[in-house]
């Protein structure tokens, strides 16, 4: 059926049937008359009559109180605006697919589903692909870059632990002797600079490039040179495996991917930090295990038992398995480490690594020890 009504007949448009029309080719505002037949027919003065299929009509954003619609088969920016509520309701009732453009519950559910899938795949990449990439890339990083990394970390570490290096000469000589023995036995080809930092925290760490720091708190808890030797050998293990470089690559990659997820959510840096610490813990546990293996091997080659190191750690941390969050710890559980080292315990075959006097000097490197 064809709409044939002459526009001249409607020279005085019925106010209820009139609407505003923009043809999408110019910004000219036209008052038009609507007719509801098989199709919606839009006619106005000086305008070729347009007919819109009801099924093609979609709602477009409009101000409150205005029904603004577009039509899939018309010019993409052509708009019809209806201000009269009855007329708008009439048109709405004829257009079954008016709201197809809007975001309904189903499409939101789809967004949620795909987001979860994307998040899962990013987690998989973090768990499997990035560790592999870090392993492959680490050997390619030049040693000079590693040293610069270490220098930057050095200043930070000293600021964090607030300690300065203890300078007692005899003690330092004993420390250097101990580290040198370990280094030679391990075949590590790197200038290692050991020092004791004057802070009560019981810990030790190695910085990329060769600085090894023993914190006084750990030294104070040690009863035997072999205990300290094991810890230092563990730190040399980190240096030999270039764990810091690997960690930088790994952390960079995971931060980037986790950042992708959260994007511009305010406070996302904390979310990124938290979720990253969660996934990196697994990764660094493996590095710790490898450093332990390194230490065990070095001690055995020197004819000393690795067990004292495990005992020292156990003395410092106590049993850790009771902690339900231990899965998040960056180190293997101390009791597991002690168990592993105890199994490899054997009678010392090699000479002691330090003499009695040297050990006493090392213990008092930061000044006289009050404890007997």
């Amino acid at each position, binding site marked *: 059926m064809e709409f044939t009504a002459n526009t001249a007949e409607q020279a005085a448009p019925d106010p209820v049937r009139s609407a505003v029309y923009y043809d999408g080719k110019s910004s000219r505002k036209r008052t038009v008359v609507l007719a509801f037949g098989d199709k919606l027919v839009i006619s106005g003065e000086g305008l070729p009559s347009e007919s819109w299929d009801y099924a093609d009509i979609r709602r477009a954003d409009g101000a409150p109180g205005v029904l603004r619609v577009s039509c899939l088969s018309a010019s993409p920016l052509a708009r019809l605006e209806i201000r009269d509520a009855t007329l708008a309701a009439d048109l709405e009732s004829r257009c079954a697919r008016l709201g197809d453009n809007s975001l309904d519950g189903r499409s939101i559910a789809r967004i949620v589903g795909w*987001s979860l899938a994307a998040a899962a795949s990013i987690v998989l990449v973090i768990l499997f692909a990035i560790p592999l990439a870090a392993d492959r890339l680490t050997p390619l990083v030049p040693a000079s870059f590693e040293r*610069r990394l270490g220098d930057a970390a050095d200043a930070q570490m000293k600021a964090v632990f607030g300690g300065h290096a203890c300078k007692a000469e005899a003690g330092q000589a004993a420390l250097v002797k101990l580290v040198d023995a370990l280094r030679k036995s391990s075949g590590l080809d790197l200038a290692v600079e050991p020092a004791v930092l004057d802070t009560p925290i019981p810990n030790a760490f190695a910085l990329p490039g060769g600085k090894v720091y023993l914190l006084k708190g750990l030294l104070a808890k040690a009863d035997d040179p072999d205990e300290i030797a094991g810890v230092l050998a563990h730190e040399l293990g980190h240096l030999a495996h270039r764990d810091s470089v690997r960690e930088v690559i790994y952390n960079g990659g995971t931060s980037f991917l986790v950042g992708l*997820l959260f994007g511009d959510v305010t406070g996302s840096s904390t979310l990124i930090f938290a979720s990253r610490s969660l996934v990196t813990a697994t990764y660094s546990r493996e590095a710790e295990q490898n450093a332990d293996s390194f230490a065990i091997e070095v001690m055995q080659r020197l004819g000393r038992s690795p067990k004292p190191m495990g005992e020292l750690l156990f003395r410092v941390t106590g049993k850790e398995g009771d902690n339900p*969050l231990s899965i998040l710890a960056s180190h293997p559980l101390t009791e597991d480490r002690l168990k592993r080292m105890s199994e490899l315990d054997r009678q010392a075959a090699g000479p002691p690594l330090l003499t009695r006097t040297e050990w006493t000097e090392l213990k008092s490197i930061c000044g006289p020890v009050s404890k007997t």
Partner: protein
Amino acid sequence: MNQMSFVAGQPPGVPPAPVAFSGNRGRFLSLASRGAALELVTFGFYRFWLVTDIRRHLWSHTLVDGDAPEYTGRGRELLVGFLFAMAILVPIYLVYFVIGIEAERFKAFASVPLVIGFYAFGQFAIYRARRYRLTRTVWRGVRFWMDGSGWAYAWRSMLWGLLVLVTLGGAYAWREAALERYKMHHSHYGDLQGSFEGRGWELFKRTWGLWLFGPVAWIIFPLLPIFYAEFKAREWRWWLCGIRFGDVRLESKLPNTALYGLYWKVIGWFLLFDLVIGAYVALCVFLLKGSGPMEAAMQALPKNIPFMVLLVIGYLAFILAFNVVMRLYFQRDLWARVASSTKVHAIESAENVTAKGEAASALGEGFADGLDVAGF
């Protein structure tokens, strides 16, 4: 010379067309709250749809001469733009990393120029993101659009940025004017070309006091939001009054003090949320700490799983609530105040504009998201 000569170029009898904002605040609030919750559930991916919903709301409730513009962008476009941008950015990041290491080998800080490269890329992204938003804006069936080059803009932005750095911020006003001139000169409404008449000197005259006494505000901290709000209001007014499309020009009567309330309210909400989360954490500690000496009990807390879970929930609630507050005040309320202060002169010259220009891709928005730069 007649009495009306102070409004030059306006024929007497044609009053300027008003701009009004008719959006319901409660509806925006529920839109932003629902969006924040969905952002959480989707690990942030919903941001593309939330941003779209917010723009659709703001555009469609802003009446310019009685007719609201329409935002035709969609969340899916932003997602695709973001993925494309990532596909381009990831290799660049990797090359940047490798070159950075190599450069550092020869000389410390030799990698600084690379950082500048990323800044330039960010400026490019800002320009292209603006282009996306503009080409998704339709008023009376005719699209706004933009040409010009993102890289040309980035160059200008960098050179002006250098000048601002050298003059300790003194050249800021001229930088804004020059960049705005470039952007507006390449903006169009149909076949009406945009331009920008705001002068750097004008902005400088209006803001030099704030620039000069800015350092004082850093010392006397509560002055800072006042200074910033005052500065922003003056800048908005200057910007709006400079905008032209053909003969159409905007005029803004935004009072200097118009934005004070927004900043104070956001700060107030932030402090309130801080108090609430503090009380919440204290309650969790009180309920879940074990018996025994205080110190030992406190040390055991980080190992207490229910406590940690409650802490994470509290933190997320805090972030979500604050996100909603920021969007409500800094997007919706700011928009409403600025829009309703604006009038459009000579709008009759836009009555029969011929449509022109195509919709631009969302790649620019993707870059802006990936590089964490924002532009308006």
